[in-house]
């Protein structure tokens, strides 16, 4: 016989202001099976929880209903309290009489009645609950980090230094990401490569890190602690084991005019190439789309030259199966190119460049060895216009958000230009200067006050070319919208930071949600900034939203800390809300007919076939079997099952039928 205890919370006045809590308690006391009912100001407080514990012990309760706030808020609290008093936690249910009742209805009998109806519904449900034990799953202590930019590098090193195995997967031939392309970094102006390359080398040499470059995620299944991931390692046409990285092959490659991705098209590379001198791994790859041999079937110059015979034209893509307990997404961002801007010439003016191109121009290792020269004719520009918010904060262009990094790097660009071309004049068109960060505002002020960057508050309407100059038409909104025309030698657009190409399909492979701009979505905007909605998958860096280097590194370390926390357990405890196929005594064994419908619709591939055999090992019947480690408890199989042979713990058919009946029969 059920012995249910009912506890009505006032939540201060949040509930009691519109619901007569004492009356609900009184009505509940009259329900069949309810042996104890009370109301209290704050059920979640220590004394409130003690009341529940005492009642459980005193009245030998077999079930508890707490009518209070949303179970999404305090279900764990009350279940824990029940467990402490010796009641199985899954015999405790909550009725939501705050968010779904007191807060959304006016004070009155109808509201009190609804609070009671909801309470009664859960009383009927809890009568049909039975004790459940949480599920234990093992944890594979290897992490996969996707993306080898500064965030991926940081996350990999942190996890590896914590003593765990890391598999770092990078799409490009080298790790380093955008940071390796930068010249100097704000607000300290230290050289980007000087601080990054040691980290890159550390990754390459770390005994706990396995690096796969030219690689992408092919597919993923499994769940937290137990992911199975297939990695596609694209053919590099160079045998890494044999290659010594001498670089002889790259010197004689006949195809020399391929715009270098690393140099943002400001310099060319060969078809067999190392993306940049400090690349990790520092071994060349063949770009098959541009290689003469792959295009015409003739050449093989590199193969003839290679002293170790490392060139392998027959190499194929390799699929690598790995198992991991956690995944860190660090795929970073991209920036819009200049061809995104019709009013700035659709990308047809060579001297209108984007911010990354300027970084390459300013970089000592760049195509001009750090001299600021314009791409069209190599002249030193006397006037350079920097345009902030190019594409960002621009709903008309489909990018309403602020790209966050541009204000700072534009100030830096103006500064670097002035440091390198003393007689030059940098103009900056801006809307707002967003320099919130340690030493950030001071930095932008320095650009204006000490380096003489001419800041003009306004957006540029259009740019056109005339007599070798770029005519930039803007307005000074601080002078009443007065039109300003500058005949510049070069224009740098601080183009919007956007999510990477392919982030949508990657998110779908990993079951991670993303925002309308295809940035990956964090689990909670404030409290879970590096977690995703999929347990065991974490976010680092700008794949979640535009971030600067310190923020990316901080997020990466945050994600790594989460992974290390996860790996500190040998096994995980999971909610036992899983589906079960019923079993019967012979000769039926189970009502399951073996139609396999559930197998085909399960989103987690958690259902398998199971043979029931007799003593002689002959198969009598084949039925479905659910792997509780994989099952996430969505219950889709329950609704699909034709013979009603599957039920979901915690939401069983019996439980929900009783809920419906109780809700309707007052």
């Amino acid at each position, binding site marked *: 016989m059920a012995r249910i205890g009912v506890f009505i919370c006032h939540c201060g006045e949040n509930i009691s202001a519109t619901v007569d809590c004492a009356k609900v308690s009184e009505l509940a006391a009259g329900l069949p099976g309810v042996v104890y009912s009370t109301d209290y100001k704050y059920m979640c407080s220590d004394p409130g929880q003690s009341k529940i514990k005492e009642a459980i012990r005193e009245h030998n309760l077999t079930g508890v209903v707490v009518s209070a706030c949303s179970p999404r808020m305090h279900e764990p609290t009350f279940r824990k309290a029940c467990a402490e008093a010796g009641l199985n936690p899954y015999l405790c249910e909550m009725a939501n009489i705050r968010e779904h009742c007191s807060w959304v209805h006016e004070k009155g009998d109808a509201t009190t009645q609804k609070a009671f109806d909801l309470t009664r519904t859960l009383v009927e449900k809890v009568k049909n609950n039975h004790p459940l034990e949480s599920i234990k799953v093992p944890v594979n202590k290897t992490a996969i980090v996707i993306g080898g930019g500064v965030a991926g590098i940081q996350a990999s090193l942190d996890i590896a230094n914590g003593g765990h195995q890391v598999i770092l997967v990078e799409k490009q031939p080298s790790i380093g990401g955008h940071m390796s392309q930068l010249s100097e970094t704000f607000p300290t102006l230290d050289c980007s490569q000087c601080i990054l390359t040691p980290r890159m080398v550390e990754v390459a040499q770390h005994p706990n890190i396995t690096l796969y470059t030219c690689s992408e995620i092919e597919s993923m299944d499994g769940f937290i602690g137990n992911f199975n991931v297939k990695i596609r390692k694209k053919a590099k046409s160079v045998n890494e084991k044999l290659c010594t990285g001498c670089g002889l092959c790259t010197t004689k490659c006949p195809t020399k005019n391929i715009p270098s991705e690393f140099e943002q098209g400001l310099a060319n590379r060969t078809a067999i190439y190392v993306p940049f001198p400090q690349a990790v791994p520092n071994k060349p790859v063949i770009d098959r789309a541009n290689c003469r041999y792959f295009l015409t079937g003739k050449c093989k110059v590199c193969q003839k030259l290679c002293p170790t015979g490392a060139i392998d034209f027959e190499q194929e893509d390799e699929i690598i199966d790995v198992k991991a307990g956690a995944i860190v997404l660090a795929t970073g961002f991209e920036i819009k190119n200049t061809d995104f801007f019709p009013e700035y010439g659709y990308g047809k003016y060579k001297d209108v460049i984007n911010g990354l191109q300027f970084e390459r121009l300013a970089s000592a290792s760049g195509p001009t060895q750090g001299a600021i020269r314009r791409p069209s004719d190599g002249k030193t520009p006397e006037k350079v216009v920097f345009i902030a918010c190019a594409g960002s904060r621009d709903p*008309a262009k489909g990018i309403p958000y602020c790209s966050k990094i541009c204000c700072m790097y534009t100030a830096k660009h103006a500064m670097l230009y002035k440091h390198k071309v003393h007689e030059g004049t940098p103009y900056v068109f801006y809307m707002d200067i967003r320099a919130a960060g340690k030493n950030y505002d001071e930095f932008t002020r320095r650009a204006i006050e000490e380096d003489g960057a001419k800041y003009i*508050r*306004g*957006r540029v*309407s259009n740019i056109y070319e005339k007599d070798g100059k770029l005519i930039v038409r803007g307005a000074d*909104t601080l002078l009443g*919208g*007065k*039109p300003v025309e500058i005949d510049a030698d070069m224009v740098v657009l601080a183009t919007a930071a956007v999510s990477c190409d392919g982030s949508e399909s990657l998110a779908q492979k990993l079951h991670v949600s993303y925002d309308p701009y295809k940035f990956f979505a964090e689990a909670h905007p404030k409290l879970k900034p590096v977690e995703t909605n999929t347990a065991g998958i974490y976010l680092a860096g700008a794949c979640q939203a535009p971030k600067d280097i310190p923020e990316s590194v901080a997020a990466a370390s945050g994600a790594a800390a989460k992974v290390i926390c996860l790996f500190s357990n040998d096994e995980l405890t999971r909610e036992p809300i899983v589906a079960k196929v019923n079993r019967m005594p012979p000769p039926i064994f189970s009502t399951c007919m073996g139609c396999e419908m559930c197998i085909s619709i399960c989103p987690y591939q958690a259902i398998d076939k199971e043979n029931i055999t007799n003593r002689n090992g002959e198969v009598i019947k084949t039925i479905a079997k659910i792997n509780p480690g994989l099952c996430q408890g969505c219950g889709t199989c329950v609704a699909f099952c034709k013979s009603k042979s599957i039920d979901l713990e915690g939401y069983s058919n019996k439980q929900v039928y009783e809920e419906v009946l109780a809700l309707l029969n007052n």
Partner: protein
Amino acid sequence: MNNELDIHIGVNPARCYQCGKCSAGCPLADDMDFTSNVVMRMLQSEDESLDKELLQSQAIWLCASCEMCISRCPMEIDIPKIMDYLRQQSIAKGLQNKSANKNIISFHHSFLDMIRFTGRSYEIGMIADYKLRSRKLLQDLTLAPKMFLKGKLPLFPEMVKDRKNIKRIFKHIDT
């Protein structure tokens, strides 16, 4: 006026974040007493005296409705529609800018009056009417004969047959 705009023409001036791209591309910004982003700012202020200043401005009449501003506006604010509304309000409240009233507004009235009576615009008649209104009797004195010689100024107006219908349209808007 800020709220009126949202109700009457569905344009919300609060969307403007004062980037000035409209003024930067406006062909007439140099000649305006208030550039378009300042116009937006005045509307945002919800200050009656600024509203009045705006309705008395020359800028709203100088706007040539070239639509460059909205075509480049990052917030897609229909400034030409706002300008139309401001001009109509300026007339309704009798706050027309004095110098614009002499030329631009007079011309508009001459133009519409011509259509009111003939259904089509007819240059000689219209220009004659405009000269009387604007008292610019000498303007275009050299151009007209040249145009006449080139056959560009027909002496007699082409008229719409169903002038009753045209009158009906004008009658509705007059009331």
